[in-house]
Structure formats: structure tokens, C-alpha cells
């Protein structure tokens, strides 16, 4: 993955010096282990700060809506699908974008690694592409990279960008995976079990909205939680209000969520919010044969209808 860093830097330098774009959205090295900071390079000299490794889990398409000027953006598979959603929803124009496509082998889940550390702090980490080497003050360990990927990356079926102006690497093999095993397990629970399961899931929520703000598909000028005439959901951590927030946010992402995992990555208290969105992704796929952001000319599912649409809700 180190080579991606070099390729992005070269491409950015070229695009900025040729003035093909006004800015390049990428990542620069973070100050904390397993983190990189989204970075906007505006002059060729800044291109040397760009990096790409397994800590680039945040979805950069989040920064696109309503940006002006010409922008290059580094996009892995899920990010590129979010860009397609933005194009379909008129949040940015295709002519403005120069997409640096990055076939992705998955992002590292720092929480999963830290969970196994039993309180010991990791001070440095190296992602070699095959494994992850971690260093603490008095220990050193080599981990199998594939064992510590973000949950959404483990079941990813769109690792290669679906839209790009330049592909920065060889396409990687896509997997045929059952994405919905955990959803089906929950579906088979009794109603009371389901209710308790989800109540437990969102119990730690402090309503910081990191999930919503990290999500590229959440860009409403006024989010429904901020509506006050009428107020649909209170802003406290009352469990019913918190549930309403997560439920309705997931519903607003039906057919738009590309399962990039930025929401789970952003959550400061580690809530698995994708359990809300994946159910709708499954339904949209099974009922309407639609996958978010894969085809650039396919209308979003809730924006259209077919005469033969199923009606499982009757009765």
C-alpha cells in the first residue's frame, strides 16, 4: 500500500501544477496511531504531505457536497459509490471532479486491535499490506492484517472504484460474500429480544452526531433532529429519542448508504450503527434489486417506482 502514497503524491503534484484542479482531497499522516487526517492540498508543494494506507477509513466524499472549483479526490471503492450518489443527487458536478480511484484491500479497525491489547497502549504501527506491526513501550507484535479489518471491509463486495478518472493500482479481486448473516440472525429473534438488543446497542449514545457528520450521504441543510416546528425528536439522551434518531437516520440512508463504515469509525463510544443501515441495504437489494452508487444512471430506489413493485406490507 506504500506505493499508493507515491502514486497519489505524483498525481496530485501533476494535477495541481497543470492547474487541472484547484485542490486535491486526500489524507495526511495522523498524530495518533491508526489515524490519518483528511487534507486539502492546494499547491503542488503540499502534495508531499499526502499519504495512503490502511488508516484511511474515513470517507472523503463527505467533503464534496457544494464544493466549488475543480477538485481531485482519492476514492476507494465505497467512497467512489458515495461520489456516484452525490452526482445523482446533484451535490456536485461530474465536470468538477477528477477521481483518483484506489482499489482497496480493506481498512484497519483500530478498535479491534486495541481491544486485544488488554490495556497496553500501542505507540506506533506499520501497515505493510500483508500484516500490521505494532509497537508499545515494552512490546512488539506482528498481526495478520486480514484479521483486523473494519467490519464493513471484511464483507466488502465493491473494493474497486466504480467511477474514476485515473486508477492508481491494479484492480483487486472482488469477493462473493454473504453480507447479511448478522442481519438474518437478528431477524430470527423474537420481537422482545430484538427490542432489547437494539436498546442495548444504542445505550452508550451521547448524541454527538459524529456518525451523521462523518456520513457522506448526510448533508441535509437542516437535519431532522434540528427541526423544531414541529420537533420530531428530542435532543436529550432519552432512550426513545435516541432510538428515533438512529432509526430515522438509517431510514434516510435507504438505498444511499454504501457501507463505507465511516459512521462506526467516527463513533467515540463504539456503537455498531451499521446494524441499522445494513438491514435497509438488504431490503432494498432484495425488493428492488438496487445497490447504492454502483450504476451512474440508475435512479435511487425511493425516487422511482415500478408497476410490479412487491407489497409485502399489506395484510
Amino acid at each position, binding site marked *: 500500500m506504500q506505493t499508493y502514497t507515491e502514486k497519489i503524491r505524483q498525481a496530485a503534484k501533476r494535477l495541481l501544477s497543470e492547474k487541472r484542479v484547484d485542490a486535491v482531497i486526500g489524507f495526511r499522516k*495522523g*498524530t*495518533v*496511531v491508526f*489515524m*490519518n*487526517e*483528511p*487534507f*486539502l492540498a492546494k499547491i503542488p508543494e503540499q502534495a508531499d504531505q499526502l499519504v495512503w494506507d490502511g488508516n484511511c477509513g*474515513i470517507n472523503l466524499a*463527505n*467533503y464534496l457536497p457544494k464544493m466549488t472549483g475543480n477538485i481531485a479526490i482519492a476514492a476507494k471503492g465505497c467512497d467512489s459509490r458515495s461520489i456516484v450518489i452525490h452526482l445523482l443527487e446533484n451535490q456536485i458536478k461530474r465536470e468538477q471532479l477528477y477521481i483518483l480511484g484506489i482499489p482497496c484491500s480493506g481498512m484497519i479497525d483500530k*478498535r479491534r486491535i*486495541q*481491544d486485544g491489547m488488554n*490495556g497496553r*497502549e500501542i*505507540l506506533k504501527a506499520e501497515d505493510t499490506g500483508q500484516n500490521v506491526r505494532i509497537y508499545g513501550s515494552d512490546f512488539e507484535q506482528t498481526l495478520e492484517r486480514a484479521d483486523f479489518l473494519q467490519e464493513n471491509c471484511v464483507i466488502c463486495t465493491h473494493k474497486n472504484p466504480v467511477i474514476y478518472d485515473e486508477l492508481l493500482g491494479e484492480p483487486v479481486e472482488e469477493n462473493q460474500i454473504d453480507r447479511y448473516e448478522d442481519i438474518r440472525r437478528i431477524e430470527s429473534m423474537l420481537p422482545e429480544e430484538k427490542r432489547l438488543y437494539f436498546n442495548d446497542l444504542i445505550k*452508550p449514545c*451521547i*448524541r*454527538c*452526531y*459524529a456518525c*451523521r*457528520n*462523518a456520513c457522506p450521504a448526510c448533508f441535509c441543510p437542516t437535519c431532522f433532529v*434540528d427541526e423544531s416546528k414541529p*420537533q420530531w425528536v*428530542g*435532543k*436529550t*439522551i*432519552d432512550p426513545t429519542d435516541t432510538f428515533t434518531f438512529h432509526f430515522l437516520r438509517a431510514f434516510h440512508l435507504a438505498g444511499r448508504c454504501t457501507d463505507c463504515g*465511516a459512521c462506526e*469509525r*467516527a463513533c*467515540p*463510544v*463504539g456503537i455498531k450503527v451499521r446494524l441499522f443501515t445494513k438491514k435497509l441495504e438488504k431490503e432494498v437489494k432484495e425488493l428492488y434489486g438496487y445497490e447504492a452508487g454502483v450504476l451512474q444512471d440508475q435512479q435511487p430506489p425511493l425516487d422511482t417506482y415500478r408497476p410490479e413493485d412487491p407489497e409485502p406490507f399489506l395484510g
Partner: protein
Amino acid sequence: MSDIYIAKSNFRGVIERLMGRYRVYAPVKNGSSHDFAPLEDPSEADLGFRNSRLSPKGIFHPQAERMFDCTLARDDPQAGILKEAQKSFPPQVVLGIRPCDAKAFRLDDANFDTDSIKDPWWVRRREVTTLIGLACDSPCSTCFCTSMGGGPYDTEGLDVLLLDAGDGYAAQVLTERGKNTLEVTSGWSSVPSAVSALTLEKKTAAEQRIGHAFDPASLAQMEMIELFKSPIWEDVQFACINCGACTFLCPTCWCFDIQDEVCADKGERLRLWDSCMFPLFTLHGSGHNPRSLKTQRVRQRFMHKLKYYLDKYHSGPACVGCGRCVQACPVNIDIRQVGRQMVSSGCSCPA
């Protein structure tokens, strides 16, 4: 005030006695992190933690609380008249709080407990709470309390400071309140001299392990308006996604929103955490928003923490270096980095 000592094998008894008289908050394991929670059993307390994920500010300033309520029943003569919500303030102990968080409460007092304004709920809770701190022996790489005027063995804001001495705890009893609280416990003896030497060694080691972030004193000397207009903010603000993670986890962030909620024939006025990162934070009733742009909000947060507070109270920044924001920020905006950029923005020397 004296120093006392107890073997760790007897410490459970201390917690039990405290629980008999107080509601005891202590770090409780929650998955792979810890949070301060009221204990139901002494064994839940885990003093081997580093620091809690959420700051303990929720003990004094809950995420949401009821301030006033009223009835809205039409025929009730008291309808619509807000009355202070009935609640109790039982005596409580926060056990194991770190020096950074205890110092943070002193900084928060500057807002909630002044000569002219006293927030009744904050003040009452502070009055009934004893803070028994635990000195830090394994600071995280994200800690920078020493740069912010604090330290891993600092006593500011604490009633008692426990020092981990291997087989036991040495306790520095710092205030009258701390002394009175510990009187319900037993099993203490005087501090063995070996323990005193050991804890001094550990204090030095801990202080040395904490990295230097930047020097807030330099910021005190800089012109506020020059910092405000600095071009560094364009660079700092890009990554920010304007969530509230940093503000909600920060022990010195106190901003709140007040909302009225109505259900059937009851109305109530609630206070809940708000964040200067949210666009709605400064939205006026007229529709004007002085901080409608992300740059303005990001700049405001760091200026408030590291410059305005410094200028106003002349006692250090509104940051205790706990590092929670550094760990929690989804896009790795690092206040230590921003502080350094602020300091060097005024520097005209080469390199």
C-alpha cells in the same frame, strides 16, 4: 492534613464503608474502555484504568437534566408556572478521578460558580461531592497535562489524592472535606518511608513520560486579533466534520442548550449538552448566524480553549491535557498540533 497508607488487600473495605454513606462513582470497565459509574458492588471499581472514555463531568453536569417543570392542565391555577424540578443531591464520592479531570472542574467553576452567577445544580452537586483522586502512573501518549499547567500527581481540585505504591495506596488528604469523608473508613496507618520514596520516584517517572505539547504562556503574549486573523485556520478546519465528539468528551466544555418539552399536560424545561461545533449553536432567532462557516466554528473552539480563557482569567488555558479529544476525533484534529501552529503563527524567526 496528613498522609496515610492502606494495603490494597484492605481497600475493598474502604470502598464498602464509603458506599455505606455515599453514592460512590468509580471507573467501571465497559467493553475495552472505562466510564465513571455509580457502584453497586465494590468489585466493580477498576483502579487499574488509564482514564475514562467519557469525562466525569457528567457527574456534575449531566448530558441532560430537568431544570423546571410545570403543569399545563387547563383548570389548574398553577398551570404554566415553571417550578424548580424536585430532585435529590445525595452525598457522593468520585473515586479514582485523575488530576487532569479534577483540575478541569476548577476551570468549569469559573463558569458555573462565580460571585455574580451561581448555577444551582452545579453548585449543589459540587458541594456534596468528595473527589478522591488517583495519581497517574501510566500516562497515555495523548496526555499533555504538564504542558497545560497540570501534572500526573497534581492535587489541584482534589480532596484526597491516592498514590499507587504497588501493594498499597498512600493517600494525601488535602482538604477538610476529604478528611471527613475518609473518617467513615478504617484500616489506615502512617506511610512507611519506603513507600514515600517509591511514590516520589514514580511521580518523577510519570512526569517525564508525558510529552511536551506546546507552551500556552507564549499564546498569552500574542495579540488575540492576530491569532484570530491567522491563515492557519484554513488549514486546521478542513478535516473537521463538525460533530460534537470533542466537546462532549472534554471535561472543560460546559456549553448547554435549554429546551422545553411538552407531553400531555406536563411541560418541562431541560438542559442538555450543546456544542459550538454544531451550526445551530449560534443561530439567532432572526435567522442570522455569526458562525455559519465551519472555519469560524473551528477557530472559535481553539481560540476559546487556548486564548480567550487565558486572557480572561489569567490562569492558564481551558484545557487540562487529558487527550480525550485527540483520541476521539474521527478525523484526527489534534489540539496539540493546533496549539503549536498557533504559537508558531506569530513567530517571525526563520525555520
